[in-house]
């Protein structure tokens, strides 16, 4: 905890006081203070501090458990002292008034926390609230008694609120250095496993051995060194990235093409070479990200392009998985031809396409919410069919099908015990899926899907066979999902109906929405952030400590994104235009000056022509 404070700026330096500090928006303060207290209590009660306390970030002082609480007053302090800046209206200089606001907000949060600790001490609500434990109380008061804890929390929250609000006050350069140093240091601490794995691959163990303490966490000395290092780097690179980006977007024609090609080659080379240096865990993680990326790309075609909200997408994942298992496994209960994976894939495509048609045909005539609910139903039906006693002789019921062999390539075998090979297999299919999405997007069919998403009735009146077009989207999505299922089964070596819970559909949808619907890059980023960092429905991510809080974080993230950035992390240009129409119109209007002059000239011409033509017609 003290680490965040040491790296905080010299809070009140250079403050220009403009308004009296008592001139506060008390309502706003009350609201955010209450929110802060509520968030602190909630996070404590769901067990995050206790559960994550063993994960140490900075060796003796800060654990992930404490961090899960401490960020709240810091961030809310930043938020509460933020002012709405209106264009053309002079807003008052940020000053001590804002600092007081942040501190007061923190104070409210701290008092809430203190009351909670007192309650913890007096009452015993362990029955409904499992984490209402003396252990939590002990953790919260740092093992030094209630009174110490109460005072400590009030002061800590107050200071953190102050620090959060001071972000607005300090000069931009300081803000930049401090925020980079803090975030950089925290990332290095949190991603310890990944970094250790990576440095081991490059033969740099001695570095990680030095930086990280034995029981985990950066040592205090190194954390100061690293923070300073990152700070220096941030000063040195200031503006470089932006300049490079601007340079790139200014390039035109063949030069732009060449630059894009170089960029593509670098990224491709990196994805090909990097896994060679990564350990088993990281490769496993990448393979999982790839599997979900494949699913998300497929769903992106269905939801993002054609606008069909399919909540039963997991059905096709299951069909791909089961088809592969039945055709390749020697233990398949009814029919075991033990085919090669490559042959199986062809049959998987046909099968998934057929199932897509069969499910799609009745569903596709519905719209909006109704369609979502019916697909939800079909997704469950498929899983329950595989689990049923009725089909047990064919698919093994709840026991599933085991002993699925890996992919035999002649010179090597791709299987789960060698996640690197699985990653390369997934990579091939992801590349294929990206190519398919990219090409279809800019084709006759892609335009038809977009038109259907915009206005289905008009699309039909403009000559688009909407039923066929939607079915095609469904089938393309189904085929991509079935690839993912096939690879999953070959990787895991078995298939069970419980791998295809409804949660999978929902998580893929969240990946698409959070990443940026309708945008390939968005889906890529979405699957890396959600599946890679937080983890999939059963697959651990980089932050495997959060395993038990994963769904909560998913939900919170989804709510936050819907409120603050509905177009996703990396939105498609079209969607951000759609969701920020007013801003876009304003931009067009501001940029329109150059065009306007031309337009007026042109308008005069056409009007003259129009009038004379009109008279001719009238005369005739």
């Amino acid at each position, binding site marked *: 905890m003290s680490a965040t404070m040491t790296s905080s700026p010299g809070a009140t330096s250079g403050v220009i006081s403009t308004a009296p500090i008592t001139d506060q928006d008390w309502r706003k303060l009350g609201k955010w203070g209450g929110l802060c207290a509520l968030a602190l209590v909630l996070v404590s009660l769901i067990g995050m501090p206790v559960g994550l306390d063993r994960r140490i970030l900075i060796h003796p002082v800060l654990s992930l458990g404490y961090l899960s609480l401490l960020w709240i007053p810091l961030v809310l302090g930043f938020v509460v002292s933020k002012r709405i800046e209106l264009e053309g209206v002079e807003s008052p200089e940020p000053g001590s008034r804002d600092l007081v606001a942040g501190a007061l907000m923190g104070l409210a949060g701290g008092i809430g926390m203190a009351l909670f600790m007192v309650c913890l001490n007096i009452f015993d609500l362990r029955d409904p609230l499992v984490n209402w434990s003396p252990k939590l109380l002990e953790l919260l008061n740092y093992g030094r008694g209630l009174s110490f804890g109460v005072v400590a929390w009030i002061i800590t929250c107050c200071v953190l609120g102050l620090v959060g609000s001071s972000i607005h006050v300090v000069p931009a350069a300081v803000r930049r250095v401090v925020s980079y140093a803090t975030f950089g240091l925290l990332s290095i601490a949190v991603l310890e496993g990944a970094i250790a794995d990576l440095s081991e691959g490059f033969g740099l163990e001695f570095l990680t051995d030095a930086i990280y303490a034995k029981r985990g966490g950066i040592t205090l000395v190194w954390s100061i060194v690293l923070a300073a290092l990152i700070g220096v780097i941030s000063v040195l690179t200031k503006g470089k990235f932006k300049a490079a980006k601007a340079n790139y977007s200014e390039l035109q024609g063949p030069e732009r093409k060449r630059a894009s090609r170089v960029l593509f080659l670098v990224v491709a080379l990196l994805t090909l070479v990097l896994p060679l240096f990564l350990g088993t865990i990281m490769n496993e993680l990448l393979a999982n990200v790839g599997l979900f990326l494949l699913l998300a790309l497929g769903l992106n075609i269905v939801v993002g392009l054609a606008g069909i909200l399919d909540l039963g997408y997991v059905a096709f994942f299951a069909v791909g998985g089961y088809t592969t298992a039945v055709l390749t496994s020697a233990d398949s209960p009814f029919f075991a031809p033990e085919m090669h994976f490559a042959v199986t894939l062809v049959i998987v495509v046909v099968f998934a396409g057929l199932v897509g048609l069969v499910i799609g045909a009745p569903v596709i005539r519905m719209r909006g919410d109704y369609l979502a609910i019916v697909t939800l139903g079909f997704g469950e039906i498929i899983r329950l069919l595989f689990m049923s006693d009725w089909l047990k002789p064919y698919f093994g019921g709840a026991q599933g099908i085991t002993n699925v062999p890996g992919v035999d390539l002649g010179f090597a075998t791709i299987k789960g015990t060698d996640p690197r090979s699985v990653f390369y297999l997934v990579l091939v299919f992801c590349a294929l899926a990206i190519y398919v999405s990219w090409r279809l997007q800019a084709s*006759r069919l892609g*335009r038809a899907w977009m038109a259907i998403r915009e206005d289905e009735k008009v699309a039909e*009146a403009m*000559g*688009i066979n909407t039923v066929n077009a939607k079915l095609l989207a469904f089938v393309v999505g189904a085929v991509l999902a079935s690839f993912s299922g096939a690879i999953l089964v070959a990787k895991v070596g078995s298939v069970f109906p419980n791998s295809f819970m409804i949660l999978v559909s929902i998580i893929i949808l969240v990946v698409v929405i959070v990443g940026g619907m309708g945008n390939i890059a968005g889906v890529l980023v979405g699957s890396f952030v959600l599946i890679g960092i937080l983890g999939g429905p059963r697959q651990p991510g980089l932050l495997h400590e959060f395993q038990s809080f994963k769904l909560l974080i998913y939900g919170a993230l989804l709510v936050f994104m819907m409120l603050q950035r509905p177009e996703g992390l990396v939105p498609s240009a079209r969607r951000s*235009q759609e969701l920020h129409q007013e801003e*876009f119109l304003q931009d067009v209007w501001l940029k329109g000056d150059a065009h306007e002059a031309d337009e007026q000239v042109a308008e005069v*011409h*056409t009007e003259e*022509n129009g009038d004379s033509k009109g008279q001719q017609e009238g005369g005739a």
Partner: protein
Amino acid sequence: MSHLMEIRDLKITFGGLDALSGLNFHVNEGEIVSVIGPNGAGKTTFFNAITGLVDPTEGDILLDGESILGLDPYQVTGLGIARTFQNVRLFPNMTVLENIMVAQHCRTSQLVFGALLQTAAFKKEEQEIQERAKEVLAFFGSRLVGYRYDQPAFVLSYANRRRLEIARAMATQPRLMLLDEPVAGMNPMETAELTALIGRLRSEWGFTIVMIEHDMRVVRDVSDRVVVLDHGVPIAQGSYDEVSTNPDVIEAYLGRPAEDQV
């Protein structure tokens, strides 16, 4: 002689309400026919019936002597009937050019594999789609060209949206074009311009046009024939001059003179 489109005894009932009852109507190749009538006369329902959005209760609709009854809207468009909507219904988040390109769907054929393999046929078709789209947009002078191509349709002004909708209908390469109040909400200058354009749609592009319109100056200037609907029944047809002096029409619009009611 055969008409381009003929409608026989068309009757459409919504619940107990007769939107159209016993409508007989025809259009010849190359004609511009205006359909006028007071609000609720059944004009838009008439268009919806032709384009397959509403199923008639009785009667028949013939295009070139063949019935198009029971076809889906996209099939009707494929046979060469395009329409615009009374309340402009573009694809607002698609660009101006894409709005026109997508309307050529029924005249083109490439599907998944052409796009994936980037076949020569696919590239050629894309090229043609784009050229045709630009050709169609060029019809409206400088209003929808150049930098406008890549702007989303929601950016356009009201009059430009109306123009774009007509362009979209043109892009489906129809024989018969149904315009639902093409100049509604436009100022006199824009109205005059569009009136001229409607004339050119026939003379340059060879479309036959059926138009619903309330602006009598436009109706007078462009139409060969005017059909007046009231309560789902045609009460008069003929040239503008004949219709505009017809006592039934005047009554439908203005009501009966006071002395007759006594």
